[in-house]
């Protein structure tokens, strides 16, 4: 545990960026996004709309190259690159924990774990939850509930830094000049900040796990399906959603690509012969909710939703995503 004075954050990141790509929330035309950081002003107020999950499971990535040679083939894989992600929030960190369990189940997904292993995570606890956030209602956050290399909490004039892994400890050890000793009062301050954050969240959003489960039981899926505009946004912004498809690009040499997919499209489950086990949009929406709140918990022990609220921000349909009522 250490204290990082406010003004030393950027110099520390600058130093680290010599060794690896530093990814942090920055502004592009005013829009906060996670992207390569090279000294731009940090945008630490809101959690970006796209979660940093894409650094482990990109929207498109090359699984391997195939190279044809005299009728046979050889293969090339790319190596993961060393990266530090600064500013990942507790909800997105939690989502990574879910993905770790899914992609780590036998047989392990090498491509995912290559990136996972070569990435250092520096989390930022949330002092000011966004208007759609409801992690606390799901029983964790707005502080990190998983082990993470480093976690920062903004307190008066700086950050309380806590390490949770050898990689994190190493950063503290290697750069002692940036950090100050912590005191008990720092910890108290952290607790107080996060307590306030929790209250702020609870006062603006009334959502509960039992409430959501009840809504899923009662929902009129056909009515919901009729208003869904098949945009896939709710799945593309979700830090837990991880559906993908695999596709080849190029002959005779080319790339086998992994591309993000969404279970809300009818082609997702349609089989080669044309039969489709989830025929209506309502079926597909129901499956999405059941996956998050029943199936993923059954498989991984963790909820498939981390309460980041992103899906409510992007939905094109006129429905309340949590009471599952169609607005008229």
């Amino acid at each position, binding site marked *: 545990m250490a204290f990082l004075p406010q003004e030393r954050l950027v110099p520390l990141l600058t130093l680290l960026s010599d060794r690896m790509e530093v990814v942090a929330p920055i502004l592009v035309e005013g829009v906060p996004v996670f992207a390569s950081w090279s000294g731009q002003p940090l945008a630490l107020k809101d959690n970006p*709309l796209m979660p940093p999950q894409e650094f482990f499971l990109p*929207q498109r990535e090359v699984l391997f190259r195939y190279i044809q040679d005299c009728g046979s083939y050889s293969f090339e894989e790319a190596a993961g690159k060393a990266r530090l992600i600064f500013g990942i929030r507790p909800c997105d960190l939690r989502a990574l924990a879910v993905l770790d369990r899914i992609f780590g189940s036998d047989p392990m997904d090498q491509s995912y774990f290559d990136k996972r292993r070569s990435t250092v995570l520096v989390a930022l606890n949330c002092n000011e939850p966004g208007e759609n956030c409801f992690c606390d209602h799901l029983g964790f956050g707005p502080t990190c509930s998983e082990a993470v290399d480093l976690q920062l909490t903004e307190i008066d004039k700086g950050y309380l830094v806590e390490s949770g892994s050898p990689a994190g400890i190493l950063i503290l050890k290697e750069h002692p000049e940036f950090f100050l000793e912590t005191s008990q009062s720092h910890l108290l301050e952290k607790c107080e900040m996060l307590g306030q954050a929790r209250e702020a969240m609870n006062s603006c959003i009334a959502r509960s796990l039992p409430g959501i489960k009840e809504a899923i039981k009662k929902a009129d899926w056909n009515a919901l399906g009729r208003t869904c*505009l098949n945009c896939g946004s709710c799945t593309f912004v979700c830090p837990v959603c991880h559906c993908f498809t695999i596709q080849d*690009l190029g002959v005779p040499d080319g790339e086998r690509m992994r*591309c993000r997919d969404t279970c809300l499209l009818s082609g997702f489950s349609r089989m080669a012969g044309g039969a489709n086990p989830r025929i209506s949009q309502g079926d597909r929406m129901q499956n999405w909710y059941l996956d998050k709140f029943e199936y993923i918990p059954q498989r991984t022990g963790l909820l498939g939703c981390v309460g980041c609220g992103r899906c409510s921000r992007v939905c094109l349909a006129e429905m309340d995503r949590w009471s599952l009522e169609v607005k008229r």
Partner: protein
Amino acid sequence: MEKVHTTCIYCGCGCGLLLHVEDGRVVGASPSPLHPMSLGRLCIKGWLAGEFVDHPDRLRYPLIRRGDRLSRVTWEEALSLTAASLRAIAQELGPNSLGVLTSAKGTNEENYLLMKLARAGLKTNNVDHVARLCHAPTVAGLSYAFGSGAMTNPIASLAQATAILVVGSNTTEQHPLVASYILEARGKGARLVVADPRKTQLAGLADLRLAPRPGTDIAWINALLNVIIQENLIDQEFIDARTEGFDAVRQTVLGSTPEAAERISGIPAHDLAEAARIFGSAERAAVVYAAGITQHTTGTDNVQALANLVLATGNIGREGTGLYPLREHQNVQGACDMGALPDLYCGYQKVAQARQKFEQAWQTKLPDEPGLTALEMLALAEDGRLKGLFIVGENPMMSYPDSSQIKKALEALEFLVVCDIFPTETSELADVVLPAASFAEKEGTFTSTERRIQRIRRAVKAPGEARAEWEIISDLLHRMGVPADYASAAEIMEEIASLTPQYGGVHYDRLGACGLQWPCPSRDHPGTGILHAEKFSIGRARFRAVEHREPVEAADDEYPLILTTGRSLYHSHTGTMTRRTSLLDREVPLPAVEINPEDARLLGIRNGQPVMVETRRGSISLEARVTEDTPKGSIFVPFHFSEAPANVLTSQALDPVSKIPEFKVSAARIRRS
């Protein structure tokens, strides 16, 4: 990973998005929460907008025809051959033997330069683009009625409406973001009336659904006006203060009773009366329409009928009211604004009136003879009177009506240059093929259907030797003896701003995530959301009486069904990009003709069966999709698929005013194959 703010290329909504770039490659896209219309949302096409960019099929090198093969050459060779051949044709047969077809998918800068190339370089007004095929009637009709052919309000204004009439637009599929605002209004209690022969998703959510027989829109729209007048739901104050010509319209619609309209359109009279009451008594009513209104021989009149409705009820110039024409391609609006039209310079300045202004600006003599529309050019080409054609970013072989006719025309050309990002059915016929940069590889601006001018930004390098069109066209301009030393797209916009009153205040440094809505006459002007608020640019808005005319082709014994064509959510235009996007291609991998179960039963056609669709012009083979969504007596074919190109079937019958072809009504028959 870098992220670059840009604009979606798939429809006129013009959503803001970010391209994700890793190691010089587009690896994803995501919505821009700051974009004032899309607000951090996208439809499925927008999410996948970057995927086709690195497709191996991209054109990488300039090609010229040697015998029956296209072979790789240098840019110098390709461009000097182009310039020399065009010049030779002009010398022999005069400049009007040349033509330029631009693209509603190209940027404003490119469209501007192309119209400059045609007029200042080739000395012809023969320049046109694909808007002719979807929204020429909007430009013609609304310019007459309101003085401007553009959408009257920002899209977001729809959310404030208390009644919305949607006509001939499958909004949820073709303009999903507009649909989201319609749903928002509906969620807040607005009454929704949807008129469409097909049972679209929106029709399923409507308070009232009207299913007119294709080609009878004027009849039933006039009936709405009839009831509105009868029941005194008109806004007399507005009519008196701000319009002219209402009496003629009142006279004409007198006979258009709901009962009379029922006989023509097949919509029950009481539904028409109810629709009229919903619309007429709403505090804020809006009309949304798309190609279903315009792609008819009566296209311009259809648009006027809607304008009459809006004017009579005073639903214009205020939040939540207005007329919302929805443009298919991302830059139909901009291509029109930029004067890629045979009779207009940029900013809708008439060739006849503004020629001197442009001669002065461009320092050259300009042609005064009126130019030809796209289909007129192709007709002349077939006759051998138009010999050289420069086509940029367009695939007439697929997108223009009556493909076999188009093929003949293109083959008759002496010299065809095609500039595109992928090989197409049209580039296969070209003498010179120029590889272009895609939207992710160049700078420029698009103008969305809500008049929002917004930037696209270069995110990655173009493949091979492909270049941005604006650079290619500058080069050609130069070779044609017109100075064109633009260092950047921003510089071209400076020139546009200086010549286009509506764009007067548009400069790249002002175009952030939000863009600017025209009219924006000066640097300090914030842009204009709602048009016609205080006054119409023509003084008073103009009513014009319009009457029902039967479509050119009616169903008969030989061809007993009415064929309409259109698009699907998952594809755009001729599919060159969407069909190279895995999820979109998977969603609708194959063309299918939609047919009503009853017709299908009579003809012994099962769902999924291969069938043949025939019209007087040609036939295509595809699968049948039996669905209640298509009304009895009609069939529907999407036109994105080269394996069953719908435009083999369509006719070139034209709207006399706007010269739009009748895509929406052809007599057809269908049988098992």
